[in-house]
């Protein structure tokens, strides 16, 4: 507990870093608090598939000594984090939550993990996920995490454990990956912030792929401020990933100081209201209230049309599972029994597409990119609900969701940065998310608007009952 009564496990990075720098809280205090918390409640929530308690304590002691010696590295120094179990971690098993890789222990860290270690973060462990970032609850290895707001509900995926852990105070921040919404979906369902940066902003090297041309790596946190701090450490070029762009990395925290006055936010209203999208009335009401709040803060709201949204979700699915099949084909042939039923089904179906199907989907993607590029000439951001509904039942059939339009996939096709920030709760007490997307490499504007909204929304103190 801090002097103001905040439980250590519910400190944000912004709060903790100030306390660590002032030496009012030590990294050892934090790691011990999280390990206790994991011990107490993760038997139910199942966020972690691997906990590296001894190493975390050793790293915390080293950080404490370093900081006491006047070598404070910055706002992530001594911050305990968790990683989706597809980020390579040197000497720590990394499985993609699949029996296919049950005994895989990488020799080196993923680039983004190495960067976060360099910034001083402390690894608590690896987090549960949908198998190979696509399967449903029937993973072939470990259990899937539960939604801390209602354990009978799904946490969303595929970065499920990351959403569960951040919401329940099982780590201060986590990393997820996002190919069709896998950072933003669990962020929305678990009531946290999930930031999918621009494609090329963060290296994918050392991260198990789902679909190379759609995969993004990014942070999942309680606050937008914390997401900015995490992105700062992760962003930048990487010789190991030719798609990581060598563009200047701005000061993301500087964007937190600006308000939304002067920003124009586009809303694809006809798509949101399309019955085929199926926006739940409570989600719709929370979204409209969020728009009203942004308008009251000085943003201008403008309706936009993106005709290619009529086929964007289908194109995203075609590209995603086609590329996934290409990656998994050899193992699907040699060890199909080691995949969970849903993951295997998705990858197998990806193998039934022709090259003509894939090329048609890529042409559709070109249209999606072009239309968004045109729209983004007129607006600074695009707002939608993150998800059409609050979290559904824990057990569900992923394959039955084929073809249902969503708000996420287009941002993977265009590579635009997009964030999910909490914007309300259903009558059942389930979180609802607001998605804001910006121009490529304009994360500062996304962060600026999301932070301004989060500060105004008044939801920061509402935590799950754990």
């Amino acid at each position, binding site marked *: 507990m801090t002097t103001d009564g905040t439980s250590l496990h519910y400190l944000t990075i912004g709060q903790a870093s100030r306390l660590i720098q002032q030496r009012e809280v030590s990294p050892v205090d934090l790691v011990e608090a999280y390990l206790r918390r994991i011990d107490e409640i993760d038997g139910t929530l199942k966020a972690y598939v691997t906990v590296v308690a001894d190493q975390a304590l050793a790293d915390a002691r080293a950080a404490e000594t370093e900081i006491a010696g006047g070598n404070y590295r910055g706002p992530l120094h001594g911050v305990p984090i968790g990683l989706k179990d597809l980020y390579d971690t040197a000497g720590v098993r990394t499985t993609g939550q699949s029996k296919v890789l049950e005994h895989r222990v990488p020799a080196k860290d993923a680039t983004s993990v190495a960067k976060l270690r360099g910034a001083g973060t402390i690894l608590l462990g690896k987090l549960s996920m949908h198998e190979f970032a696509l399967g449903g609850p029937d993973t072939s290895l470990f259990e899937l995490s539960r939604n801390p707001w209602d354990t009978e509900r799904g946490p969303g995926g595929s970065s499920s454990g990351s959403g569960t852990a951040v919401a329940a105070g099982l780590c201060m921040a986590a990393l997820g990956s996002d190919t069709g919404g896998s950072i933003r979906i669990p962020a929305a369902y678990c009531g946290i912030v999930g930031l999918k940066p621009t494609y090329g902003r963060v290296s994918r*090297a050392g991260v198990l792929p789902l679909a190379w041309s759609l995969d993004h790596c990014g942070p999942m946190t309680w606050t937008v401020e914390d997401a900015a701090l995490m992105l700062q450490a992760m962003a930048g070029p990487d*010789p*190991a*990933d*030719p798609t990581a762009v060598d563009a200047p990395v701005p000061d993301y925290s500087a964007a937190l100081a600006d308000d939304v006055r002067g920003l124009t936010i586009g809303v694809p209203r006809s798509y949101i209201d399309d019955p085929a999208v199926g926006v739940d009335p409570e989600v719709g009401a929370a979204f409209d209230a969020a728009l009203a709040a942004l308008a009251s803060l000085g943003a201008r709201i403008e309706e936009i049309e993106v005709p*290619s949204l*009529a*086929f964007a979700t*289908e*194109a995203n*699915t*075609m590209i995603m599972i086609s590329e996934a*099949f290409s990656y998994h*084909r050899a193992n*699907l*042939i040699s060890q*199909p029994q080691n995949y969970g039923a849903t993951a295997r*089904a998705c990858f*197998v*179906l990806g*193998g*039934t597409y022709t090259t003509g*199907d894939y*090329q*048609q*989907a*890529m*042409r*559709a993607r*070109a*249209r999606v990119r*072009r239309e968004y590029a045109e729209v983004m000439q007129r607006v600074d951001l695009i707002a939608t609900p993150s998800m059409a509904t609050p979290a559904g039942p824990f057990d569900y059939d992923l*394959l039955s969701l*084929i*073809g249902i339009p969503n708000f996420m996939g287009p941002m993977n096709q265009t590579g635009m940065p997009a964030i999910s920030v909490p914007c309300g709760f259903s009558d059942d007490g389930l979180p609802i998310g607001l998605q804001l997307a910006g121009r490529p490499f304009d994360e500062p504007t996304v962060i600026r608007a999301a932070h301004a909204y989060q500060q105004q929304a008044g939801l920061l103190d509402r935590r799950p009952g754990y």
Partner: protein
Amino acid sequence: MADTFETMLERAGLSLPAGEVERLRPYYARYMASFQVVYEADLADEEVAGRFVAAWGPQSEARS
């Protein structure tokens, strides 16, 4: 559709137990149906082509 599914599986090098083929068959049909919207879109002026940066070379393409 039945023959098509099995042919496509074979072409992909996949050999599934008969029960799993039958389990996946309706999903295959649903996938194929849902993707018609992508084929029905007017994409006449869209193309897929590689893009090259000015500094293109072994360095820009390399994975270390």
